[in-house]
């Protein structure tokens, strides 16, 4: 009798607990498909690609989660978390989301760059996309600032965001656009590597009214991976373009032209 009661209890607990314990049965789980190596998200972040697909320690993790700021224009940082079985999928998701949010806060306000709210969101959990793939970044995006000093000493600080079509370093020439915070395109240009993390750039804004050429460098690490391009207009006026740093950080590091 006691055994029967025990069996019934176990059965009851399994049946009853299942819907709450298994995220896979979530009414919100939507089939957005599984991750693949060549997905733009992984091509964009080479280090994450390595961790997710190449490095033994992380690729075999029982639970993996990736969070990025969304919408896609905001995805200039990311957070990926990996854990073995002792950490649940939920905890790994929380870790990724929390780290993304912290990172975003640490880099300072981005309201001068984006006229819309950027918010960290889980996009991948255990090889499953949690959002439609079409909403994910298909190219590289980042906050952008252009500093320009005119011949009267007046200083212009143009803050928005940039979109660039391919990966610096993998493609020799990369085109980019700079939009204002209202997502109106103001500038375009090219970054041409001479091999390595530096090269030449050209910039043209407002139908050529502000045009500059010069050199750029890709910088990795603190405060965030970014590109800084320094050049001059045809009238030898200095122009600096920074991609990858929110406006205040960009001004703090490169605004003093």
């Amino acid at each position, binding site marked *: 009798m006691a055994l029967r009661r025990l069996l019934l209890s176990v059965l009851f607990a399994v049946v009853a607990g299942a819907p709450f314990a298994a995220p896979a049965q979530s009414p919100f789980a939507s089939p957005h498909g599984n991750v693949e190596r060549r997905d733009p998200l992984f091509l964009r972040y080479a280090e994450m690609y390595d961790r997710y697909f190449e490095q033994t320690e992380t690729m075999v993790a029982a639970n993996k989660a990736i969070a990025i700021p969304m919408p896609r224009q905001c995805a200039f940082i990311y957070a990926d978390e990996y854990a073995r079985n002792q950490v649940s999928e939920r905890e790994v998701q929380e870790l990724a989301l929390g780290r993304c949010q912290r990172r975003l806060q640490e880099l*300072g306000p981005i309201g001068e760059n984006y006229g819309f709210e950027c918010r960290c969101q889980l996009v991948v959990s255990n090889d499953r996309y949690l959002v439609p793939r079409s909403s994910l970044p298909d190219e590289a995006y980042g906050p952008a600032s252009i500093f320009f000093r005119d011949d009267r000493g007046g200083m212009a600080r143009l803050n928005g965001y940039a979109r660039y079509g391919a990966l610096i370093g993998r493609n020799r020439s990369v085109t980019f656009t700079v939009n204002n915070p209202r997502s109106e395109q103001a500038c375009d240009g090219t970054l041409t590597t001479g091999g390595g993390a530096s090269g030449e750039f050209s910039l043209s804004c407002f139908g050529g009214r502000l045009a500059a050429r010069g050199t750029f460098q890709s910088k990795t690490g603190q405060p965030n991976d970014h590109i800084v391009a320094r050049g001059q207009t045809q009238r030898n006026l200095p122009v600096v373009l920074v991609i990858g740093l929110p406006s205040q950080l960009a001004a703090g590091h490169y605004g003093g032209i």
Partner: protein
Amino acid sequence: MRALAVTALLVVIAGQAAAQSAGDMERCFRDPRACAGGGAAPAPAPPPGTGGVAAAPAARAPDHTSVLQAPEAERRKLQESLKALDKYAGPIDGNLQSDASTKGIADWQKGKGLPPTGKLTPEEARALNADAANAPIKRIEPAPAPAPAPAVSTAAANLDALKAAEAKRAERRKVAEPKAQAALDLLLADMKKYAASGGADGPLAGEFKDLKALYAATGLGRSSTLRVSGTTEDYGASKSGVAHVVELRLAADPDAKKPAYCVVLAWNSAAAAGRKDGAAVPCGDVAGLETWKTSQGLRSDWR
């Protein structure tokens, strides 16, 4: 004929110079379509009277006294405008005849192509205020050395900003707490009714369509003695009003020997309306919950 050609050349040169002024570039950036042709600059915010600031032929002596005799508030405002344009670093005392003020005015006039008299006509005063109002970002003086700002100061500034944001959020949460608690109390009462009906009737039945399946799976069945407890998990403005996210724990056993079941209910409420956009998710489904929050545009006052 020659004079005409020289004049035309001067106009062209002046036009080119204006085409690359910092102010123009900022205006173009704010409204790229206005400058897309690459030709004429978008009309700068109208500085009445001075417009292109080409000095008008002096048919009569300029009026420099009106501004000096203007009310102190207006004179202070002009000093503030000079300061905003980085032409003045002195005190805001309304004294437009001080050395610093006259120098600042002369600098500004020079920049506009006006005679640098150091005194303002009423038209120039209006143009100066308009210039300041249209200068969204203050000039940055060139740094003595182009060394990157030390990371420590940036980190410290960000830490301060983070602390300030947290303090602000704590304040918002304090304000939100009574409202969130009232909504939670109502939900707990409704949940009891729902359990008493075996997951069939009551206000919740139509509001959270996913709840029925989740409740059925708990096996708690019809229970008038169900223990229901809950905590607010998130709360804040959403695109359809106010979003509530509540974590509920359900237990049939009064001694709590059996495990409690956990479900998160999320909904929006608006003035004079009940719960809408309801969603029920298992407590472990962080991604599902975040998806709902994002879809509702939740701006948290809670966490």
